[in-house]
């Protein structure tokens, strides 16, 4: 087999993205710099478009992916998309396991109706205000993230823990035990099923998922079909030896007609190297097609009429950009609105209360759910693991998106990693001082349950943990201290709820805000010395 330089380039790029993103998503010790995950996620198609459409970032990655596709085909699918690369990895493993060179089935007809159905379903979802759910379910990058965070990360943690004893015995204290965080069964079902589907399809038919289910694949396929440079078969050189068919992941090479369905080709370049006769190469296609009246006469046996494809594609492009832009930016005016200063009663409005608490920087649950694609990069990056995948706490639109769960952790006051990694601005990166005043919820103290009242002994674990002293204590009974909450100082970090030792129901719980507010900044005067200075008070 000849070496194809294009294939080497493709494999190298794919390795960088795959290893980088996998380590960012699997990083159970916060060892990978946040920039790695943030950047590699930021060049993904859907997050980039969401960021651009919402004005969260001037992210041109999505546009550049379209431009690249129009130039040379779906290079995104084989070099950048981690879900696509994962399928290649799985297929490769399967051929290793079977100790034989992978042979894919030869040419297969595209499943046009399914492809169009998933794409149009996504477009319809975005246009009707369900962008949050449809993008989350179908964005390939986010699907990849959830598989790694939900399935691989805990397994890797357990593997780490199994060697801790050995490492410590060898004097390595740099390897230590880390708690493995499994999401609930409900939140694991979707990534698990998706992984099973992807793996089965990858072993059976290479990139069938990308050419059937994935709306990004279908959309980019439409552009690829019109690419300036396309892979084409040199019919003069072709011996019909089927070497190219054996290595084609997309079953898009039709030797009978001597054509390649470039809408399904993921630009893996396997065929170029497989051909002993140099029969498959990039050719400039625009000059030829421009010279002819109708593209349909190029002589391809395209499965669906060009006209329909054209209309589909145009409408899709319009709908995606407009739908995303309109729907998402409609929420925008509320987004930067940070302050409800002076009207701290805002949080006490019961309509504003919710059990699902979204991260600081999300601004409001509505804005957050529209933008978040549930890639769960923040779940992996969160050092306290207070972020958990939601099931139905936010409603259907919040499926698998991060929410703060205070039973076993709380939001670290000095941390803003979720905002640092978020690729599409669903969690804006706040200045730390801003984050420390962002009220994502507020504590409600039930003194009837409090240990100080019930048992008549000191406790105050809640106020001990409170970073703003919204939860403080006041003298109570005989030399006791009873917690008290100053609501307008509370930011809803959950430290108090986490620390409260009352069982089974805690005496202090945080109710989330649907729209985040702003806490009052405490006035800091120098503390007075409790004893005269200069000598020992004993």
């Amino acid at each position: 087999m000849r070496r194809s330089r294009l294939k080497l380039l493709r494999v190298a790029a794919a390795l960088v993205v795959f290893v980088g993103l996998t380590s960012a998503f699997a990083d159970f010790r916060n060892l990978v710099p946040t920039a790695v995950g943030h950047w590699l996620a930021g060049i993904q198609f859907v997050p980039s478009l969401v960021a651009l459409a919402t004005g969260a970032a001037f992210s041109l990655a999505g546009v550049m992916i379209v431009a690249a596709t129009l130039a040379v085909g779906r290079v995104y699918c084989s070099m950048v998309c981690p879900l696509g690369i994962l399928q290649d990895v799985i297929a490769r493993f399967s051929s290793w396991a079977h100790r034989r060179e992978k042979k894919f089935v030869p040419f297969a007809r595209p499943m046009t109706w399914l492809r169009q159905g998933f794409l149009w379903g996504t477009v319809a979802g975005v246009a009707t205000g369900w962008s949050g759910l449809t993008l989350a379910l179908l964005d390939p990058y986010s699907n990849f993230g959830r598989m790694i965070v939900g399935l691989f990360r805990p397994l890797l943690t357990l593997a780490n823990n199994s060697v801790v004893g050995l490492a410590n015995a060898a004097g390595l204290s740099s390897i230590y035990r880390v708690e493995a965080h499994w999401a609930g069964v409900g939140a694991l079902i979707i990534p698990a099923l998706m992984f099973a589907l992807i793996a089965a399809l990858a072993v059976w038919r290479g990139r069938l998922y990308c050419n059937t289910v994935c709306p990004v694949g279908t959309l980019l396929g439409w552009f690829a079909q019109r690419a300036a440079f396309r892979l084409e078969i040199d019919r003069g050189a072709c011996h019909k030896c089927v070497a190219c068919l054996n290595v084609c992941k997309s079953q898009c090479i039709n030797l009978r007609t001597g054509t390649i369905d470039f809408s399904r080709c993921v630009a893996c370049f396997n065929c170029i190297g497989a051909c002993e006769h140099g029969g498959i190469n990039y050719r400039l296609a625009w000059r030829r097609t421009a010279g002819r009246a109708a593209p349909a006469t190029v002589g391809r046996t395209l499965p669906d009429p060009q006209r329909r494809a054209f209309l589909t594609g145009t409408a899709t492009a319009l709908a995606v950009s407009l739908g995303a832009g309109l729907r998402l930016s409609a929420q925008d005016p509320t987004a930067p609105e940070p302050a409800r200063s002076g009207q701290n009663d805002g949080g006490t409005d019961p309509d504003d209360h919710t059990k699902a608490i979204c991260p600081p920087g999300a601004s409001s649950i509505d804005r957050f759910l529209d933008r978040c694609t549930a890639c769960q990069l923040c779940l992996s990056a969160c050092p306290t693991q207070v972020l958990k995948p939601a099931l139905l706490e936010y409603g259907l639109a919040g499926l698998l998106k991060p929410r703060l769960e205070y039973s076993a952790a709380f939001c670290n006051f000095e941390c803003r990693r979720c905002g640092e990694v978020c690729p599409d601005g669903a969690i804006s990166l706040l200045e730390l001082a801003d984050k420390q005043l962002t009220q994502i919820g507020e504590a409600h103290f039930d003194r009837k349950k409090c240990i100080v009242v019930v048992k008549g002994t000191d406790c105050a674990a809640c106020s001990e943990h409170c970073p703003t002293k919204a939860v403080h204590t006041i003298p109570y009974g005989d030399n006791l201290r009873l917690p008290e909450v100053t609501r307008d100082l509370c930011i809803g970090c959950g430290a108090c709820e986490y620390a409260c030792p009352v069982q089974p129901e805690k005496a202090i719980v945080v109710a989330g805000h649907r729209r985040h507010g702003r806490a009052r900044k405490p006035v800091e005067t120098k503390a007075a010395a409790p004893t005269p200075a200069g000598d020992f008070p004993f």
Partner: protein
Amino acid sequence: MKNRREFIQAGFALGAAFSLADLGGLFAAETSATDDASPIPAPGAGKSVLVAVRDGDRVAMLDRALASLGGIGVFVKRGQTVLIKPNIGWDAPPERGANTHPDLVAHLVKLCLGAGAKSVSIFDKTCDQWQRTYANSGIEKAAKEAGAIVINGNDPNAYREVAIPGGLELKTARVHSLVLDSDVFFNVPVLKHHSGALMTACMKNLMGVVWDRGFYHRNDLHQTIADFLTLRQPTLNILDAYHPMVRNGPRGTSVEDLVEMRSLLASKDIVAIDAAAAKMLGHQPADVRHVKLAAGMKLGTINLENVDIRRFKLA
């Protein structure tokens, strides 16, 4: 082939040899009896000794206190394993006074290794996320550089269930194995206000060696704190009172919560040292209920009149 610890030990010994004169009382105390180096009575037998030092930096104050107690060699013998338990509770930098200062911890590590300790381990069961807390407290870096082994205190496998027969409320607990197994146990907290316990000093700091702190909170916080002392008392308590947090404790909100006192206390008697600490925060010792309870359980001396207090002002 020398490993790192041996290298640091050798380096320290060499440095100590060259600076013997400057170290003043510390090494002098080991070789000849100075005016303040007298035998240390065990708690309960005769008067407890409390050393109180003011107006120096932490390192100088620790050196002075140890010299007064007979030097580090009184506490650490060659080949012994040492545990230092600082307060590493909160994700806050040293200047916030929420944790024991790294300078103090690092210096103690060097002294122990210099005295021939086989190993010096450090851990705390942090309240904030532990890696961040270890890092931002400055203790992890300083202690490692000084040659200590810094251990993850949040590993449940490191804790062992033990009976505490002397306890009234706390009858069993899962205690960190380093506390149970180390030859020498230094308790090195920082003095702070505490919104629940009124004060956190030496006794309260020992909550950080137990897995389930919620049990303490549910079952009479002060009594359980006192109960733990019946299991094992630290070899020596060293209290960082350089700039105690006098309000908003134990976490604090800013440096405004601190008052500079430039003090350090050291004693084998954990009740006496906490009684003195209470006075530094403006309380009567008996106001801090766990101090009063521990005194009642004959775990130390609450009445400072009955304590041999050695006061030093370095400036």
